[in-house]
Structures are given as C-alpha cells and as structure tokens.
C-alpha cells in the first residue's frame, strides 16, 4: 500500500509541466539532509483510495502526475497509479532516491517502456546538492518517444533564470 501525505500543484519539480505532486511516505533511503524527513515514517492515507478523486478534481488544469518519496514501498501499486494517470492523458513522473541503474527497477517490471515520462534518480548528497546544483549527483530523465530512450535533462534545472 502506498501512503501519501497530502498533495500540491507545482511548477518546478517537473520542467515545463504543471504537476500534481503526491509525497509518498515510507521512504527507506534516509538521505542525510532530506528535505522532508517525515516521509521516512509510515504516515498518511492509502493513495489508491483517493487518487481518482484528487486527479479528477484537477483534470484539465494539470499536465503531469508526480510521485515523490517512498517509491520502493509498493512498486505494483505505484505502477497501477502510473497507468491510471496515463488513462487520464497525463504525463507521469517519479522522484526516486535510488542510485542510478537500480532505480525503480521493480516499477519498470510492471510498466511498458515510456509509460513513465519523467524519472529522477539518485540519493540526495548534501555536499553535491539537489537538481538545481550543477555539481549534483542526481539525474532527471525524460522519455523521448521518437528515439525510444530516456534522455538526460538535468541541465534544464541549471538554466539561467530571468
């Protein structure tokens, strides 16, 4: 079961998208300096119960659904939710703290290639910084359907602001 602790609509997490973000609790990574340490505990409500109600409330106004935090708690449920989001015509995104290579392997086992539009991988390492830092170890990938692979778009986060 995936438990979530509220939701928000954000503009920065997924570049160029208006994303409905669900923070998922039960994260096992325990990164030092984690921005939301409460997600390391087992709190919140079952996301699958409320998912359709919340997405339905914002359908038309959002372009993407993003899951953040405990992605490895229940990969099957996560895959079901990603597929449900696709049926709404939305793009999908997972923020995973897993190291590159092992990331979300479980989730991918239950998904078609390209079902997941965006994927962030890499644990947070305080000295290297988050995605906005040019020294970060974290990577953001976007599915490129034309070329059939996930391209690295991390540098989008480093673009000069106006």
């Amino acid at each position, binding site marked *: 079961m995936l438990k979530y602790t509220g939701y928000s609509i954000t503009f920065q997490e997924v570049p160029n998208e*208006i994303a409905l973000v669900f923070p998922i609790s039960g994260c096992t990574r325990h990164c030092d300096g984690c921005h939301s340490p409460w997600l390391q505990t087992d709190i919140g409500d079952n996301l699958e119960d409320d998912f359709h109600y919340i997405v339905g409330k914002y359908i038309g*106004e959002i372009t993407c659904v993003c899951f953040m935090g405990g992605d490895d708690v229940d990969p099957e449920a996560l895959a079901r939710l990603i597929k449900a989001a696709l049926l709404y015509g939305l793009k999908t995104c997972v923020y995973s703290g897993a190291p590159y290579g092992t990331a979300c392997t479980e989730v991918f086992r239950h998904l078609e290639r390209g079902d997941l539009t965006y994927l962030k991988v890499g644990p947070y390492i305080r000295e290297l910084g988050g995605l906005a830092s040019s020294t970060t170890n974290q990577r953001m990938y976007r599915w490129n359907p034309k070329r059939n692979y996930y391209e690295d778009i991390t540098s989008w986060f480093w673009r000069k602001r*106006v």
Partner: protein
Amino acid sequence: MDYYIRKEYGEAYRLHVDDIVTNGLHPETVGQVIDSYFNQVVYSLNQPAAARGSQSVFWNVAYFDSPYFHQLFEGFVFPDGSDLVSHWASVNWLQRRFMKWFNKERTKNLLTFPVESFSLLNDGKTFVDKDSADFVAEMYAEGHSFFTYTSDSVDSLASCCRLRNGIQDNQFSYTLGAGGVSTGSKCVMTININRLVQNTHRAWKAEGSHGDFMTRLSSAVVDQTELIHKYLLAINKIICDMRDCHMISIYDAGFIAPEKQYLTCGINGLVEGAEYLGIKPTDNDQYATYVNAIMSPIFEINKRDKTRTVMFNTEMVPAENLGVKFAKWDKKDGYFVPRDCYNSYFYRVEDPTVNLVDKFRLHGSKYTGRLDGGSALHGNLEEHLTKDQYWMLLHTAIRTGCNYFTFNIPNSICNKCGHIEKHRFDKCPVCGSEDVDYATRVIGYLSRVSKWSLDRQKEAARRFYSTQRNL
C-alpha cells in the same frame, strides 16, 4: 503617442526602428527616440506629487488585444480625419515595445507605477487573439509582472488591482483618450464582514438558533448595505455640492463626471468570518454558500438603488491599512481575530494546502460572480515559470472564470549596490552584500517590503509562495 510618432517618422516607422533620425554628437535612432519618450513619461509621473501628500500619482496603463482595441476605438477619428483602428498593427507594436522596455527598466530602478493590465478576449475555451495571448505568456515568462484581464465579451475593463468598469456606451472619455471608459469610484466604505458575521451569529444563537443561519446572515448584510448606501449618498451629496461650487477642478476640467463614478461598498474580513463559523476558506460548497450569502444581497441592493445619477458597486478592497485596523479594533473589542491583518483574498494567504489552481477557482465565477466591482487574484510564485506553463494557466483562468489576475515573484534589490533581479536572492550576486530587500505587491503596485507598515510586513512574511523547490 503612435499618432504623433507616425506624423514625425512616417506611417511605417516601426519598420525603420534603426534609422538614425537626430543630429549631434550622439545621433539617435527612431527606437531610441521612442524609448526616451517612454522614459520621460514614466519617470516624470513617478515623481512625488504635492497634492497627494508627496506620494507619486497612482496611474495605470492598459494594453489591449485586437478585439478589445477594435471594439473600444471603432469610429474614433483624429483631428486630421484619420481613424485609429486601421492603425492597430502600429499601436500594437508600440504597446509591446513599451511593455518590453518597462520590464527591462524595472531591473534598473524599482518603479512602483504604472500598474499594467492586459485585456484579452476569450470565447469560453481559448483566446480570440492568440497572438496577444501568446505575447502575454511570453512577457510573464520574461519575468514581467502585470495584470491580465480576460472576459468573454468586451463588456468591462479593469485597471490596477480591483476596479472593474462596465463599458456601457461608446462615448468619448478623457481619461483613456477615447472609448467611453471613464474610471473610478467616488468613495469606498467597507464592511467588516468578520465582525458582522460574529454579531449576527451571537444574536442568532441568543434567539435559540431558529432557522437557517445563512438566511439570517443575508438579511444582516442587507441591513448593513442599506446603511452604507445612505452614508455613501450623503457623501455623494457633499461631492456634488462641492462640484456645483466649482471646488473640484477635475470635474470642471471635464476629466470625469460624478455620474460616471461609482459609490463603492467594500468587503474585508470575509475569510476571517468563515473561519469563525468553522467553514474552511478553500474551494468547497459550504464556503461557496457562505460567500454567496454575503455577496448576493449586496449585488441585488446595488442594482436596486441605481438611479440616473448614482451607481453602486462592490469591491473586495485591497485594505492596505484597513485590514490591519479592523483586526486591531476587533481584537480590542473581544472578537475572534485569527490574524493581525485581514485577508484581501478569498483564501488564507498563509495556507500551503491551497494550490494555485484552487486560488484560480476561488477567484473564479463561482465565488466572484456577484462581485460587480471586481477582485484580483495574486498568484504568488517562488520562481518564474516557463511560457508553456503560463499559457496553461491563462487557460485555467478562462475555465475557472477568474477574470483578473497576476503572478507575483518577489524581486530582490541589493541595498548596497542597487542591483535588482527579478527573483529572490539572499546574497547580492554582484557585490555579495547580504543587506537585501524584496519588492512585491502590497496589493496592486510593486513596492519594497521594508517600506510597508509593520503588520503588513508580517502578513507578507506569512504569504505562501507556491512551488518552493522540493528537490
């Protein structure tokens, strides 16, 4: 301005922006001449004016999309017999140049005025003039902060933070040059909704809680509004007397007529009243019922009391100072006061669970439909968005019926070297000083947070800016 530039530099001046047209040591191009005119207008109007207690004049600039422009200025003729609407391409070029110029100028100086509004016509689904809407999204993405007004008919205009004027007839008006748009309110008198709700609730309870509370609230609003209309009529009489004695020069000069100005019934403390009743000020049916129980009666009475010489409207007033005063007075008198400065919005500024889409809905037709004087959504954002994201949000505005809005991203100013950037920094990127100040809107206009009243500063600190990076 376009007319005179055309007279000076030819009908197609916009195609010859880089032609040198002045002599001397520093020859200037057409574009530079135009920019120096912009400069002159903006900087001279931002000087302190003696008649306003050494504050600068409060002024607005309106931009129009093609349908608005054509509807408003159809039939307008210049003294030389040429018409205005056939020069749309030229005027449009000029208004865009001004917008770009002003956006850039704001990185040199913190210019409080003008407050800008861009009017866009929509057809219920998308924008009629796509090119203009595209330009609006582009300007937001370039970090410019201005208001957008959108409506599905060319029925009214908004300027600055709240004012919405019905465009009834297409007659000449001096305030905008042409087009039958005369703006303004003669006087605003504001109802403290929080106090009214609490008084009514106590009385209702004391009488044994008979009947529906919302009906009772509506009738209390009716009584209060009728009272306010009487006060406003008295003030109107005084203003008219003064006009008859030729004591008000703007009327004598014909800039505006008192019959064209509204008497305004203000609203403040709406959110606080809801909180007292235990209603969550978020997008929900209970809150919608509450809002309409208050707005509908005022709307109806405004309509009922309209005569040939007086008109009433309702505004969600900015309450720069009043929001603080109401809270202070209510606290002293033992009322429930949840914050030191009452909200000027339909939601709690400090509530992180109200996301931007919710805010659009709360300032959409469901809640503001009966607010004939208008209200403005201030979408507070931590960081600038992309053009695509703004484009989506412009459409969210159409779908929710939110017709007047802007996006606020705090600008930062270094107090040491004067460097300005259109986003938040804690340390000046140029000189490294940590003595920085932020500029955002109190309500309609941009100003330094440190210049605000103390309680307003506290409120600003509590404001929730969406999309903090959660990386």
